[in-house]
């Protein structure tokens, strides 16, 4: 048997050599991918030629000629497409940043409420989570917009909550700032939807901290509120942050549903641009680049945060 051992054999058959197969397999994979891409690329060029479209991003400098409902930075229809897209991007970022902050508050509150020793609070939090988690976000947005915001009273006699928040068809008004109905709808929609998922994550995280930690905190004389803040929650964070990150990513991506209610975010502006110019490839690349960049930034920031709360092992 020993003279048959492969490692000592001077002339190893090629097809017996695992290294050959590894190389061949990868070569084959690259070849197939290249052929598929080449075929698709050829089709694309042919189809674009038939449509009479010259690929390229130069169209970004021509006049956009459409109006945008909400312009946090100055914009007029006579501006270029790139300016219009920038407005859309700012609008998107606005909703994402505010949304992430609000949904964190809502989610943590509801998550802790799910574990409250108050029966009513516990059940209300459960009802909230089960309703909002189990219906499509798009439907919720349509509901908030058409069934709630558009049926609110006119600006002249708004609904006033505690004299601070004023609700009317013109949107949500705080003493120092005013939000359009579209922005408010999108914000409420994605906040409540994502909040329901975060609540479950927070609940799971808190439950993952062992009972002994509560008991130890109590024996040190900490009140339940303090024990939660100083002992339990910091430990729960280690379990919470990775799934929380993916919820933040979902929120950022879901903000593109703004198109359903006419909030001019980057996706809406980009698809308007596509409708006007017919430049599918360029618009698609733009959308991809922007969302991938945003996703990457959120992941990076959350990973840094994650590192800071992980157990430091010495």
């Amino acid at each position, binding site marked *: 048997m020993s003279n048959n051992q492969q490692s000592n054999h001077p002339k190893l058959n090629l097809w017996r050599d695992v290294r050959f197969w590894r190389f061949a397999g990868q070569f084959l994979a690259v070849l197939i991918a290249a052929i598929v891409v080449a075929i698709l690329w050829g089709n694309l060029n042919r*189809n674009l030629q038939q449509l009479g479209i010259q690929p390229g991003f130069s169209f970004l400098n021509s006049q956009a000629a459409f109006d945008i409902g909400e312009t946090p930075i100055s914009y007029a229809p006579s501006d270029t497409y790139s300016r219009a897209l920038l407005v859309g991007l700012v609008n998107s970022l606005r909703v994402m940043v505010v949304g992430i902050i609000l949904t964190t508050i809502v989610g943590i509150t509801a998550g802790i409420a799910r574990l409250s*020793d108050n029966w009513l609070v516990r059940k209300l939090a459960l009802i909230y989570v089960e309703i909002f988690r189990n219906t499509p976000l798009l439907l919720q947005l349509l509901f908030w917009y058409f069934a709630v915001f558009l049926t609110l009273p006119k600006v002249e006699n708004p609904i006033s909550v505690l004299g601070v928040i004023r609700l009317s068809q013109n949107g949500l008004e705080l003493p120092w700032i005013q939000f359009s109905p579209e922005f408010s709808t999108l914000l409420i929609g994605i906040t409540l939807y994502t909040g329901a998922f975060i609540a479950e994550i927070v609940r799971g995280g808190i439950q993952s901290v062992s009972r002994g930690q509560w008991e130890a905190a109590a024996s040190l004389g900490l009140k339940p509120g303090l024990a939660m803040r100083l002992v339990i929650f910091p430990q729960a964070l280690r379990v919470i942050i990775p799934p929380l990150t993916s919820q933040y990513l979902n929120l950022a991506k879901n903000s593109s549903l703004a198109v359903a209610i006419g909030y001019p975010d980057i996706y809406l502006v980009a698809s308007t641009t596509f409708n006007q110019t017919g430049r*599918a490839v360029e618009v698609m690349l733009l959308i991809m680049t922007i969302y991938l960049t945003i996703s990457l930034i959120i992941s990076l920031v959350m990973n840094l945060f994650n590192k800071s709360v992980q157990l430091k092992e010495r």
Partner: protein
Amino acid sequence: MNQPEIDNVPSAVRLSPLGWLRKNLFNTWYNSLLTIGCFWIFYQILRSFLSWAFTNAKWAVVQANFRLFLVGRYPISQSWRIWIIFVILAIMVGLSWGAIAHKLPSQLNLWLPWIWVIVFAIIFWLIGGGWGLTLVPTNLWNGLLLTIFTTIISIGLSFPLGVLLALGRQSTLPVVRWFSILYIEIIRGLPLIGILFMAQVMLPLVLPSEIRLDRVLRAIAGLVLFSAAYMAENVRGGLQAVPRGQVEAARSLGFNTLLILLFIVLPQALRAVIPAIVGQFIGLFKDTSLLSLFALVELTGISRSILAQPQFLGRYAEVYLFVGLIYWVFCYSMSLASRRLEKELDVGKT
């Protein structure tokens, strides 16, 4: 707060109603305040909702369009086909549940995936027609029918793709691994709406001009491309849960890599991720609502077209609440089933 109650009362002791109230709602002063505040808010919401539902709301819009919500403009003369599909699906779901949760004969377990494939084909034929049945064009597949159809087909098609991608991501061949990672991460970084846009607009551009996919097929293609990346991540979780010892044991018995994969690793890995796949199914079921933004008339789409009828103008709340209820019933019962399944499979604990 989740304060462990360290008292000597056994939890099984039945409290009097007053005692229960004291213990669960009014045990401290801030809990009493909380209870009263929450109750007041809850009462206000419930009261205004009920008074609206019984006085101002006109539910006729739901009654008049009930059929449209469920199957849309699917020809009435062909409704029996839908009923047959319903029965087939019920039997198949029952069989699968039995096979997975109650460990029915392993013969059935082995054949189940193939039976599902055949059932898919039969369902497709029953809905679409041809070969002896009246043809029903895809623009007549509407409402809940289209929602369920696109969800099942997309999950079914994305499953093999997802398994391949997951295996690719675990592969020792760097090129294959990087392809898989690139695909998974790019798709997961994009919103579904962007991918559906791509499928509707880009697919016709990159395919030869002789091939014309219709709107429904393009939407399904988009959903499959999207879902496969998430499926891959779920399956990867399962693959990582299979102990290394299993592979080593199989190798020492003389299995080759393919056999190890097919008979040792995948069965264990897939079993572990069934609950996650049910979760993904729920997600996809909700996500199909986005198809309404691309002129498809599924459940959300049909409610928008019903609302466009002049006699039902402005009945947003009624329609959206009703449609929401349909979505909710499906998603909630599936999530209950998934939780049961998790318990039966005993995969929740690690």
